[in-house]
């Protein structure tokens, strides 16, 4: 198990949740996995929704039992409770969205790790495993509450044992729970967001020209950090960055930080891009200094 986890594409540097995912066309989509906290929140939302459905259906069936047939209401409740507990996750995840309402709210989606279609078997497997991940620890806790401290040692052992199943996602890099492991699935973050404006094409106003020496200071890494600063809302950071660039390049302060940064970005981008097209990439400022 450990070996196979290590085989998944690994990023350099600190552990991230980005994973390689190659489509049949041969393009790596670089998917982002859902974090443990996001997934726990999605599960809690689902549990709350299931409880709401259970309470509403129980009240409805109770009214039906009082008004008409008690036996039929009882049967419907028993079968409905089973279907709710086991079918909620399965039905929503086999639907086209691949996500329960909780997962949708948190922007998560279940996919097959091998890139193939998410089959019914996989969805069934990952959700049947909830039985030992969630309900087994809960039943031991329930037994403990019912028996008091009759056999505290045994209960502690049982909780430790089931805790391994419950907290399994925290023990591996891909945040796989046991259900994901058995079904071969991943839970990935999917968010639809609009295309951000092009920073280099603002308008037709006159632009600053920069000497070659000023542009040679930085590489691609700094360019993208600069993009973040310009797009961000932190005015203080923009002032600080503009001051640093001016100091390093020996440029005078003209009092317009935002205009300065945008022009510098466009000029730096043009320079790096022309280098890139002839095969000279500068990944960061250290590459630039050499």
């Amino acid at each position, binding site marked *: 198990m450990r070996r*196979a986890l290590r085989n998944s594409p690994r990023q350099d540097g600190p552990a991230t949740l980005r994973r390689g995912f190659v489509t049949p066309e041969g393009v790596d989509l670089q998917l982002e996995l859902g974090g443990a906290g996001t997934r726990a929140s999605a599960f809690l939302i689902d549990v709350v929704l299931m409880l709401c459905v259970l309470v509403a259906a129980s009240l409805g069936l109770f009214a039906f039992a009082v008004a008409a047939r008690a036996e039929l209401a009882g049967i419907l409740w028993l079968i409905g409770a089973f279907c709710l507990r086991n079918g909620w996750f399965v039905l929503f995840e086999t639907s086209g969205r*691949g996500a329960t309402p909780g997962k949708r709210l948190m922007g998560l989606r279940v996919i097959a790790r091998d890139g193939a279609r998410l089959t019914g078997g*996989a969805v069934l497997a990952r959700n*049947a495993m909830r*039985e*030992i991940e969630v309900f087994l620890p809960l039943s031991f806790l329930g037994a403990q509450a019912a028996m008091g401290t009759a056999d505290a040692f045994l209960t502690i052992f049982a909780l430790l044992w089931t805790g391994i199943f419950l907290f399994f996602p925290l023990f591996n890099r891909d945040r796989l729970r046991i259900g994901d492991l058995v079904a071969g699935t991943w839970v990935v973050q999917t968010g*639809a967001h609009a295309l951000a404006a092009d920073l280099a094409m603002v308008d037709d106003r006159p632009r600053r020209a920069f000497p070659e020496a000023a542009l040679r200071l930085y590489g691609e890494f700094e360019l993208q950090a600069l993009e973040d600063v310009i797009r961000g809302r932190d005015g203080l950071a923009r002032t600080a960055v503009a001051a640093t660039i001016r100091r390093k390049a020996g440029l005078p302060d003209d009092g317009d930080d935002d205009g300065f940064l945008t022009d510098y970005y466009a000029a730096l981008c043009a320079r790096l*891009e022309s280098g890139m097209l002839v095969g000279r990439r500068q990944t960061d400022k250290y590459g630039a200094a050499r």
Partner: protein
Amino acid sequence: MSAFVEAAPPLLNASRFRAAHEADWARLDVLLRRIEKRSVRALSEDDLLALPLLYRTTLSSLSVARETSLDRAVVDYLEQLCARAYFQLYGVSGSAWRDVRHFFTHGWPAAVASLWRETVVMAVLTVLGAIAAYWLVRSDPSWYYGIIPEALAGGRDPTASPEALRATLYKTQSDGLGTFAGFLFNHNAQIAIFAFALGFAFVVPTALLILYNGLMLGAMIAVFASKGLGPNFLAWLAIHGTTEMFAIIVSGAAGMRIGTAIAFPGGQSRMAALVQAGRTAAVAVAGVVLMLAVAAILEGIGRQVVTRDASRAAIGLAMLAVWLVYYYGIGRRHAARASQ
């Protein structure tokens, strides 16, 4: 020194790239939003035909942007757009009805048939448990209380008179049948899913659960047999028991499949073996839930209506024959074809 120049802004490759392809990306985005909000059926025929083309265009845009563009906004945008399009094109199953039909004609019987080795092991465990409990209780009736919990015995213990035991077999009650069947289904199906999931812990808990199931069976038979009611009890049990016991054994076999896949992955990597085993076994467990629904109807309603021993046994054996033909007649052929 920086100086202002009136010249046109530097026309970047990235900007030209955006201008050339942005319309395609935007159209794909609109189509995807419509699918995500409602479903594929919300698209017109033209849109449906355009979708794969737009997906490929956008995917190639992503490759080009990664290699030639320093505009990270474009790469981020294209990554999420391609991922969403990929999920809609490759990740979703076509028609729910076809999937359901395939489950009944192929998936379910083939999955159970492919578990035959594990099924045999679990059946042997059940029989061993039954024989052991029968022998124990016949030699010393006090063993009975160690095997069957009092709530489940319901007065059917070694001290009960033959008349009382006979009454439990043939007494018919007219009301509450449906509720009883519903309760049985809910309880048994949950246990079956549990037995499957426990297989992950290297089969040990699953095997114990199945063995215990056999022990309870043997202890019950011993009590009735000691009062000369053995055949009557077996007929009482057979009407639903052939289906129910078979279902529990299959769910144990499904659990055993995932447990052994972790312990002994064979030629595959452990993860690959586990995934293959898990997906097959889960389909079998879905079938087990349906079997238990049938068993609950037979037990809750059929057994109360049919009280003659011969007809009870006949129904039970007929059900067993149906399951055997379905799994090992129809299912085995599909399983063999799938593995070729």
